[in-house]
């Protein structure tokens, strides 16, 4: 199997400053659409949705003077490809400490591609309770033509039309050396 080291970066579509601006705009749009931070519950999808959700929480708190609730989903056990991916993938912890009933959930992920991760996240959320609404925020949307399920984002950092053989990688200081988004390709 190809590892990350085999990938060649074709183009850089966002740098650290651009990511900061995109997140600031996402935070503004989220509080605007939901008229404040009351009953907002940000839920980051592991792995890269988690630091993005933390940053959005801080920005929303700065804007509204009130921090939204915050949690983490690990969707591994809800994947629809568990029986086909070979050895079962590593499971991490889901952390939804506060009750989600009646809350407005903002699901947060780095890249929206086929929509299957979001389907798994929504199924898992429903096992935790009955939120009032669920909205989706992503840093990068690779475009509707890749979607395999009827799922769209409510808040988009940047829409980047891509080809199927390309890989969009969101790099965050929590996991990588840099803060950037790049389009990669296998050589």
């Amino acid at each position, binding site marked *: 199997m190809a590892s990350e080291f085999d990938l060649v970066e074709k183009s850089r579509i966002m740098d650290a400053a651009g990511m900061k601006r995109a997140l600031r705009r996402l935070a503004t749009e989220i509080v605007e659409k939901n008229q404040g931070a009351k009953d907002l519950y940000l839920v980051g999808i592991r792995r890269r949705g988690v630091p993005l959700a933390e940053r959005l929480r801080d920005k929303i708190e700065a804007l509204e003077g009130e921090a939204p609730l915050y949690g983490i989903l*690990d969707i*591994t*056990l*809800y994947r629809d490809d*568990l*029986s086909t991916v*070979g*050895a*079962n993938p*590593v*499971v*991490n*912890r*889901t*952390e939804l400490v506060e009750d989600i009933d009646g809350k407005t959930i903002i699901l947060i992920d780095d890249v929206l591609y086929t929509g299957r991760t979001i389907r798994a996240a929504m*199924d*898992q959320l429903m*096992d*935790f*309770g009955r939120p009032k609404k669920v909205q989706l925020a992503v840093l990068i949307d690779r475009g509707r033509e890749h979607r395999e399920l009827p799922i769209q984002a409510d808040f988009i950092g940047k829409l980047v039309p891509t080809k199927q053989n390309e890989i969009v990688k969101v790099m965050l200081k929590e996991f990588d050396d840099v803060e950037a988004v790049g389009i990669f390709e296998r050589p």
Partner: protein
Amino acid sequence: MTFDSGIRNPQSATRNLLEKPFRRRDLLGIRDLTAAEIIGILDTAENFSEISTREVKKVPALRGKTVINLFFEASTRTRTSFELAAKRLSADAVNISVSSSSVSKGETLLDTAMNLDAMAPDCIVVRHSSAGVPHQLAKVSKAAIVNAGDGANEHPTQALLDAMTIREHKKQIDGLEVAIVGDILHSRVARSNIHLLTKMGAKVRVAGPGTLVPEDFRHLVENGLEVCTHVEDAIEGADVVMILRIQRERQDAAYFPSLREYSIHYGLTNERLDLARKDAIVLHPGPMNRGIEIASEVADSSRSLILDQVKYGVAVRMAVLYLATGGATVNG
């Protein structure tokens, strides 16, 4: 008897250790596992433990998979624990106990196994009074085999849940001093725990009546095992005191004069426990014989983690079923 670890392709199983720990198909014993594989199972189990705290205690991970609990020996706790683990992962669990099986009608073990196999289960959890039965099943069955206790040989998920309990309270196992007290000879729990704890870097001291400490354990001394004659020597300074049940059903001879005498010399009382470290914890695999191997005052104290062990047992078995049915490296 040779113990097949169930690995058809041992090289690839070890090569991927760090990125994908525990890639074996079967869990037959702790003896076959490396420290990295043990840590991989424990980490997975810790992440599974949260599921049992949810209002909806179920995830769809093993939907459509079938787990057969094949128990040739009486068991309530372990069988229930495996059954709950399978059901919380959405697998279909079927329980077969010896009284209702065709074994009592004269069928051989392997015929039973092959008949079950023909129904295409994904995993067979087996408990048997003879050592090596899970290993034999692993040779003929297409399903993943999980050992739920084979004779006096091993009880790997018990050692894993003990390790999880220790990790939750002591953060790490490396460097701890662990006393295992009681009927070591008949105890698969002791065997699995000694393998696990020494692999993970603990110092293990065993103590019990001379007749109940097997001679073949003395060769494990180089791995950090110490055999003590007096229970006080084992407990002194220990971080963990593990008490074993007196297994009267396995004792075919008089290994000690009387239960009362055993209790006087080896029972864990508050006075004996005072020899251990102040923050020492007490484990017992259950079912307890109160007043024999453990005094009620100890069993009911805050240092006793017996119910934590039961709680973590479900998480450990969820992790084991998840990893075993995930299709390991068998045939690439």
